[in-house]
């Protein structure tokens, strides 16, 4: 048998093995990239932010609950333009004076060591989520505080106060119960306009949650489990003597909660 009669050598098996190695190399590269992408994603998801105790907290930057297209007075529960005292605004006559003038209510504290609180007998006793808006200003420059009260009970020995100070641009949330004050929240809001500007204060109340707005801007929120902020009346508050608080365009609208 000469060389010309030899069968040509078959390389099929070798080619299969070679193809197998190439395929293996490709699969290994793909697997590597899948692992790399997966690892990067997990890092981005930052498991270090997971709180194993209780992270069910509201966001640090609160999101307003009221609709963007909300117009005060569009879903009225109560409206007061202060033309006269038809709604029966009352308070302790020894501690506060009230005057209706030019379609506004002027309130003054008469006792340096006490506060003046006024509410109206025809103001509704609220039980559902609502937004309460009122325009407040003072008749002179003052560092005294003023604000709105809510969850006010008939006996007036229990309420929450949202108060602002025009000079320091600070806001405060306090709870009053049987001659005891409990401070719950304080902060600074640039939205508070100095004297003689009018500041529009709004509070959106929904069960145990309150949102606080100054001149239309949400400045803070507050939650207190077990407390129904939406039960009770609203009122106006003057912290100190030496100035008169001027109130106008008080509106309470019904807004369904989330």
């Amino acid at each position, binding site marked *: 048998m000469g060389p010309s009669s030899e069968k040509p050598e078959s390389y099929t098996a070798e080619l299969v093995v070679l193809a197998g190695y190439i395929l293996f190399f490709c*699969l290994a590269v793909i697997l590597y990239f899948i692992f790399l992408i997966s690892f990067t994603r997990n890092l981005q998801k930052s498991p270090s932010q997971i709180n194993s*105790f209780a*992270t069910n*907290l509201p966001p640090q930057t609160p999101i307003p609950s009221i609709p963007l297209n909300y117009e005060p007075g569009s879903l009225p529960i109560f409206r007061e333009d202060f033309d006269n005292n038809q709604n029966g605004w009352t308070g302790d006559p020894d501690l506060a004076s009230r005057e209706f003038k030019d379609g506004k209510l002027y309130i003054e504290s008469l006792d340096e060591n006490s506060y003046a609180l006024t509410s109206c007998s025809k103001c509704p006793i609220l039980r559902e989520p609502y937004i309460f808006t009122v325009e407040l200003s003072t008749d002179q420059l003052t560092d005294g505080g003023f604000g709105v009260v809510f969850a006010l009970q008939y006996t007036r020995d229990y309420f929450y106060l949202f108060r602002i100070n025009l000079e320091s641009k600070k806001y405060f949330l306090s709870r009053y119960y049987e001659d005891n004050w409990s401070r719950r*929240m304080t*902060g600074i809001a640039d939205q508070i306009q100095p004297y003689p500007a009018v500041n529009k204060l709004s509070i959106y109340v929904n069960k145990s949650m309150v949102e606080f707005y100054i001149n239309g801007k949400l400045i803070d929120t507050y939650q207190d489990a*077990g407390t129904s902020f939406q039960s009770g009346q609203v009122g106006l508050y003057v912290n100190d003597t030496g100035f008169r608080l001027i109130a106008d365009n008080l509106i309470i609208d019904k807004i369904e909660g989330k």
Partner: protein
Amino acid sequence: MDTEALKKVPKYRWGTKLAGWCLLILYAGLCIVASVLSFGNKDNSLQINDVSPTPTIKSSVTPQILVHLPENKSLIKFEDFSSNIRNWSLYYPNGKVEVINGKMILQSNLSNHAAIGERHDFISVYENYYVQADFTTDIATRLPYGLVFGMNDSLGTYYLFFINPQTRAYYLLKNLSGEWNELIPFSRGKIRPYPEVNTLSAYYVKGNIELFINGELVASYLDEQPLQYVGVGAYVTGSGYRLIVDNFFAYSEP
């Protein structure tokens, strides 16, 4: 020649077979690695789903006083923060104290400005008392926080048992109306890192203060001029994080 050619073929096939077996082993290895990675990834994705968006891992352990349990258990005051009916209040301006989902949430809203959530009448004024609470934060923070005791909110005096989980350090301070005294300096302890809970306790007997972290005694100090009041609370150093407090225990006894 023929014999040589015949000899070459088996040698050649033997090499191919070896390469083929190696390839099979490599494929098997690749399959194992792929399975392991896929399993690990599944675990991760499950974990992420579990925590998103607002996880709350409930502890199956019943909250209890870890050390110095009093003989008369009726003396124990316990706050589970199911509501704020006991009126936890804010001390210092620029902050917020809330009760949300069974926890007290304390925060300062100005950097370098502290805030305290406190109760001055949680326990009666006696010379012996014990305070304990669980602490963690909503995010990892380099700022310390801690347990306040012996407080008089009118005078602005209190003890502060401070911990920093990031550096695993603790210290005891005494505030006398703005004047800080370091009673126990910066020390290292078995403080659990974020997001784990640390239980801080202080046992006070006539000026002798014992400090516990997660039930273990870490330090003691005898204050020659002790504070006589029993207000309790929690303390945050500044803004940027929220302190989460739960299971506040305290008792005092003559």
